[in-house]
């Protein structure tokens, strides 16, 4: 936390994107989180991703619940739409907004407490409905805001700052998301922006329910020896299955990798994902294999990160509901009340 506002001055040679913005133009107000909080790094990654995607800030709606993690949308995208809901209710508020106006880019930001405890049901239903969004859980294994109680993602056997051992089984958000039909699933780490930024970019460009479980150490309550969500622990146990580059404009692809180690995936919106495999046999298009692999590595004490599963042809809630092309909030009386002639026609068709 800081008392002075972040100075307006910026580096004179800062790159600008297609809209003429620098990454500083995607910042929000200054963070009030603890110094060193992993969540601030995720905010920085969101800022960088939106800058690189040349997104107009007013095209984004950022939604969150309650928690340190849920406070972060205040610290990025100061010129975007936003809604800070009650605890655990971000998914339903986001779903409602999305139903009303499918033209915006939805970014759901939540914590492991917000999504795996009080909001677990909400999380599950938004995923299984295929809401078109990027849902990021900033996962630190504790309730940071309420001073560090174990959360439901805390590993069995991990130790709290004050010595208590967690006896409950952990919820693995990534496995649940895959099981419930998310069409883009990734896990990353706040301490590795080179991995996180492209994952956020690809997730925001994905059509359908995209989910990122981002491990984000809580420096105040969960960064000690005995924690499985500390910076050191995650760095030691991180098993990266692939490295993602995200190309929006089909930029020239430099083929400087050994054959079979690079895979190109073209998403629904035309964006190309270039995946460099670091784990040779991992196939992110095979959901069953991916789920098995995750279980296997988890049993071996590894934390698998990277793009874990993607269905480039993802579908979304509006596809299932077969809604009209125009966003519902733009429909006018004439669209909604077509008149007796139209009613007559409809009745005829049902005879």
């Amino acid at each position, binding site marked *: *936390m*800081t008392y002075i506002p972040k100075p*307006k001055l*910026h580096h004179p040679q800062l790159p600008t994107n297609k809209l003429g913005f620098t990454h500083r133009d995607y910042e929000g107000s200054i963070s009030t989180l603890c110094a060193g*909080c992993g969540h*601030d790094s995720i905010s920085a990654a969101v800022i960088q991703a939106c800058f690189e995607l040349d997104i107009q800030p007013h095209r984004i709606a950022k939604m969150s619940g309650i928690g340190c993690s849920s406070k972060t949308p205040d610290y990025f995208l100061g010129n975007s739409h936003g809604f800070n809901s009650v605890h655990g209710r971000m998914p339903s508020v986001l779903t409602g907004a999305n139903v009303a106006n499918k033209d915006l880019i939805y970014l759901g930001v939540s914590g492991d407490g917000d999504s795996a405890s009080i909001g677990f049901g909400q999380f599950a239903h938004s995923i299984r409905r295929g809401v078109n969004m990027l849902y990021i859980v900033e996962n630190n294994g504790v309730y940071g805001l309420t001073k560090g109680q174990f959360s439901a993602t805390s590993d069995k056997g991990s130790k709290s700052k004050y010595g208590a051992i967690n006896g409950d089984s952990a919820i693995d958000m990534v496995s649940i998301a895959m099981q419930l039909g998310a069409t883009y699933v990734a896990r990353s780490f706040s301490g590795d922006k080179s991995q996180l930024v492209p994952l956020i970019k690809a997730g925001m460009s994905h059509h359908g329910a995209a989910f990122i479980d981002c491990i984000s150490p809580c420096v105040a309550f969960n*960064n000690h020896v005995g924690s499985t969500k500390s910076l050191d622990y995650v*760095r030691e146990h991180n098993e990266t299955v692939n490295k993602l580059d995200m190309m929006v404009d089909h930029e020239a692809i430099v083929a400087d990798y050994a054959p079979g180690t690079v895979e190109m995936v073209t998403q629904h919106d035309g964006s190309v994902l270039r995946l460099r495999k670091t784990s040779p046999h991992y196939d992110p298009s095979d959901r069953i294999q991916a789920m098995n692999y995750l279980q296997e590595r988890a049993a071996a004490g590894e934390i698998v990160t990277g793009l874990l599963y993607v269905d480039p042809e993802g579908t979304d809630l509006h596809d299932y509901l077969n809604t009209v092309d125009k966003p519902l909030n733009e429909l006018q009386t004439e669209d909604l009340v077509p008149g007796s002639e139209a009613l007559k026609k409809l009745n005829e068709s049902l005879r």
Partner: protein
Amino acid sequence: MEPTNIAAPEYFHKVVDCQWACPAHTPVPEYIRLIAAGRYSDAYMVNWRSNVFPGILGRTCDRPCEPACRRGRVEKEPVAICRLKRVAADNKDDIRDRLPGIPVQKNGKRIALIGAGPASLTVARDLAPLGYEIVLFDGDPKAGGMMRTQIPRFRLPEAVTDEETGYITEMGLDLRLGQRIDSLKQLLTEGYDAIFVGSGAPRGRELELPGRQEAAANIHIGIDWLSSVSFGHTDKIGKRVIVLGGGNTAMDCCRTSRRLGGEEVKVIVRSGFEEMKASPWEKEDAQHEDIPILNMLVPKEFRHKNGKLTGVVFEKVQAVYDAKGKRSLVPTGEPDPFFECDDVLLAVGQENAFPWIERDIGMDFDKWDMPAVDAVTFQSAIPNVFFGGDAAFGPKNIIWAVAHGHEAAVSIDKFCHGEDVKDRPAPDVALISQKMGIHEWSYDNDISNDQRYRVPQRDKEVSLKDVRVEVELGFDQKLGYAEAERCLNCDVQTVFTPSLCIECDACVDICPMDCITFTANEPEEELRHHLQAPANNRTQDIYVSPELKTSRIMAKDEDVCLHCSLCAERCPTGAWDMQKFLLDTTQAGPACRSR
């Protein structure tokens, strides 16, 4: 890259761009903070220790610090460092009780100083408090050298010169004003332990063109004419004046002419406007006083009628560049322009003149017939004769004369104590944490967004009427405060302790200037391209840590750091700290000696 050695005094000194650029290494941010705190006398004394003439320099300094100032790299203009000095001088209390005492018991050494300009006065100031007996000679009746005789009163009121030269001449010196030295050979026989030559560069360069002799009555050497105005011997000039030359002397000549009856005054230079030697602000001030500056005109002939000057003929030239990009001025072939005038002032350069130094006394002279002087010790081939100021390496400016004076005083002090003058003393440095609380620092870390303030000037109608009326009014306290707040406190260093870093990225994320990167180590050239933001300014260092836990390094580009402390505030472990780096050069006295 090798990890940065922050224990070497020059590393953090270089980060304080202004102090590094100042020839006398004035601790600029330190005095600027004191001004902001309203502690004008303290700010004055910080200056006085380093540059000896804060009130004079606060009006006239060539200010090499300002082009170097970091503020000029993060927005349009640097901090008005020079004019802030004047704020300290204008608003201070009586500081006489803070000046060093002069011992009654002398140390038995006698030193002769030739010339009473800023160089000699600095030597006197450094040595008199140590008990040296100082004998100060000057051909002029008052001390101050060119500060008094050349710089016009409308830029530097005489009262300021009197005050600041007075602090030194009242240090119990043996003043021999009005006494020229005509023979160094003679002086060497008079038993001085050391002699310091601070006689300046007193000769104005001639311009031998047809008509020069015939029209001599109305063609004046600029610096002689200016001193004659200063002494009150000259108080008028013709209505139409041409000033030849493009340096600061030319600017003083034309502006002085405007005040002595010159109505149509122009400055005419051989080369382009941009290449003129005069400082940009001096040119601006001249133009503001309705003095046109005409360029690309090479003087050819002085026209006269029966020995009365009528004007000057010029040849029009243009700049032509050869294949190597080397420029030459080539006549355009157009008819030669003729400009009528009543008087011409020659300001085409200045030279040293040592007719009073005999060639058979053991002094070495170089190929330009200048005494050979060591650039570090200021010693000549005669071991007890030292030089400084314009006399040492040709005309420069006041702050360089002061810097030379300090160094020469160190040499004299060591020489008189039988020490090797080549063994130079290290500066006195201190590095102190500024942390007062989690978000509290003992300096104002909030960055002002204000643009540079202009110094208020007196109405032209008034100032053009009298050569003694000062044009600039100076910043008042309020403006002085606002301008002082623009300073980025570059002496408050970001100090990194690698063993405490947990590589959480918090500093990288918060830094408003994208200064910090955690990355794989590489040679400097590659590293400069792989940072958060390109590090293209090679004059600024990259601060590199040893290898960290993840086998990366921390690399910080010092170039545009605002010293805002946000990195340190965001660091959860205190791996970053803001520490004030105070560097004082070592001056003559026990500290400069090795025994």
